[in-house]
């Protein structure tokens, strides 16, 4: 037995992340009631960190935002289709208004938290977050919320183009209806964040949740109204889209802006629909999270 052989045996095995292998037990942090005041006081700092993160990776951030070019492609397609003749009641201006609004809403309510969460669970880095006296849901939420202003900077030119374009005539002018836009956007953001957080949390139970994210995106793109307006879909598909939560992320905020027939009451009902789904997804998420963290601790963080 040589000396070098014994030292390498004593060191950590190659390929094992030290944080995952030698992290202190996290259970203790969970038993104690959470100090809510400390959490509240930490939120401004968390937001500041989030802004700094977003600014540090701004080039990637812009490219990431540009990859949401699907609405522009669909816009090009449907406006040339509508130029021949209106398509199921949609003329060119309607399509311009619809897809530019989709682009703005998508930029504001989109989320990528599932990738981060999956990565942290798989690599064991989540144990560090669990040790902190702030719930990981809140720390992730703060960091993502902080990127919203920069996303607004990207969405703003699109909104200006929308107001100057032919689509401006197709927008609603009812201010009482438009007042519901802000709550609808906030709930849309929250809904998409919660759903993606829940999908990321599936990594507690599955080896790879990224395949599920792909499937989710496919379902989401159709049922949210991201791909085509709900009103031009085949009837059976539109019926499914009406009851599922996904239209809360894109379709509802867009409808509030582009559908003058809605009225303030109709807009309020749509926001109520979003709120109901937000509560339901949050309940599901907290159940999933509690079971997942127990499992995570069980396989030795």
């Amino acid at each position, binding site marked *: 037995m040589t000396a070098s052989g014994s030292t390498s045996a004593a060191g950590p095995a190659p390929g094992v992340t030290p944080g995952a292998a030698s992290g202190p037990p996290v259970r203790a942090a969970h038993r104690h009631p959470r100090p809510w005041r400390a959490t509240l006081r930490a939120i401004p700092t968390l937001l500041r960190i989030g802004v700094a993160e977003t600014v540090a990776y701004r080039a990637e951030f812009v490219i990431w935002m540009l990859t949401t070019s699907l609405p522009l492609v669909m816009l090009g397609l449907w406006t040339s*289709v509508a130029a021949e003749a209106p398509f199921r009641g949609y003329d060119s201006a309607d399509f311009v208004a619809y897809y530019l609004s989709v682009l703005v809403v998508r930029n504001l309510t989109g989320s990528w938290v599932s990738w981060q969460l999956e990565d942290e669970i798989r690599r064991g880095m989540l144990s560090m977050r669990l040790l902190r006296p702030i719930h990981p849901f809140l720390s992730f939420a703060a960091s993502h919320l902080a990127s919203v202003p920069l996303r607004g900077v990207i969405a703003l030119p699109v909104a200006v183009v929308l107001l100057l374009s032919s689509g401006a005539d197709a927008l609603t002018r009812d201010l009482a209806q438009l007042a519901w836009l802000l709550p609808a956007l906030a709930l849309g953001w929250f809904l998409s964040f919660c759903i993606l957080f829940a999908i990321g949390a599936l990594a507690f139970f599955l080896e790879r949740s990224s*395949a599920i994210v792909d499937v989710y995106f496919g379902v989401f793109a159709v049922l949210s109204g991201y791909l085509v307006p709900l009103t031009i879909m085949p009837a059976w598909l539109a019926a499914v889209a009406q009851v599922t939560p996904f239209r809360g992320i894109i379709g509802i905020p867009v409808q509030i802006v582009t559908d003058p027939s809605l009225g303030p009451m109709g807009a309020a009902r749509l926001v109520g629909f979003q709120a109901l789904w937000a509560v339901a997804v949050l309940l599901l998420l907290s159940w999933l999270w509690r079971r997942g963290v127990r499992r995570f601790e069980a396989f030795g963080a």
Partner: protein
Amino acid sequence: MTGERTLRVLAAQLRASVMTAMQYRANFLVSGLVALYWVAWNFLPLLILFGDRQMVAGWDYPSALVVVGYFVILRAVLEGIITPSFEDAISRIRNGSFDYVLLKPLDAMLLVSACKVEPWKALELLAGLGIFVHAFLELGRPPTPGAVALGVVMLLSGVVAMYSLWLAAVSLSFWAVRLDNLMYLLSAIFDVGRWPISVFRGAVRVVFTVVIPVAIMTTFPAMALLGRGDARTATGAIGGSALMLLGSRLLWRRAIAAYTSAS
């Protein structure tokens, strides 16, 4: 013979990669199902559009299906070989193990381009062929042998054009290591390829024919297979993709020359 040796090494690389992928059988099955789900997904906008219209910009439903068939096949090649291999290369550039690739006495570009495959994408390849069969049954006439030959040649030129674009993106990532997001951007743009280029108008059409030639990848091959292709489009497409390959090869050479390892 370096040519023969290169081929042998490439074959060995592919075999190892397929074996690795086959180890995860559950994952294999799930990924296969997910792949088929995406193929079905491609039909939806087409069904909506042609549920209401007989003709759009000179394309009827079966002809547009041929474009979708090429789109599905090209995307299978893209996501089956090109992106996994290049993503692997980019992570090697970042962690420094790319040096070992350069040290091997073979062409690094070839080694990098086929170092990782996702075998379940072969299912999508089959689905693409199935779409062709369905489309020509709907049309009620088989393609002529000449059209099939031209369609195959154009498919190859489309693959070359696609490969060149992605190779250029990887080459750029030598200078700015975090540019791999550019590949996601390219994938998002490639999505245009599911539509015949003539349904777009004005600047959009010019961009996707000349600047980022998605038309070379799906629309022109589909026209060839449908017997609508003319010699000018065909030579233009083949010449264009050859030029793109040359350009990205030069860019790759410059990138390798500028590479100073991660340390």
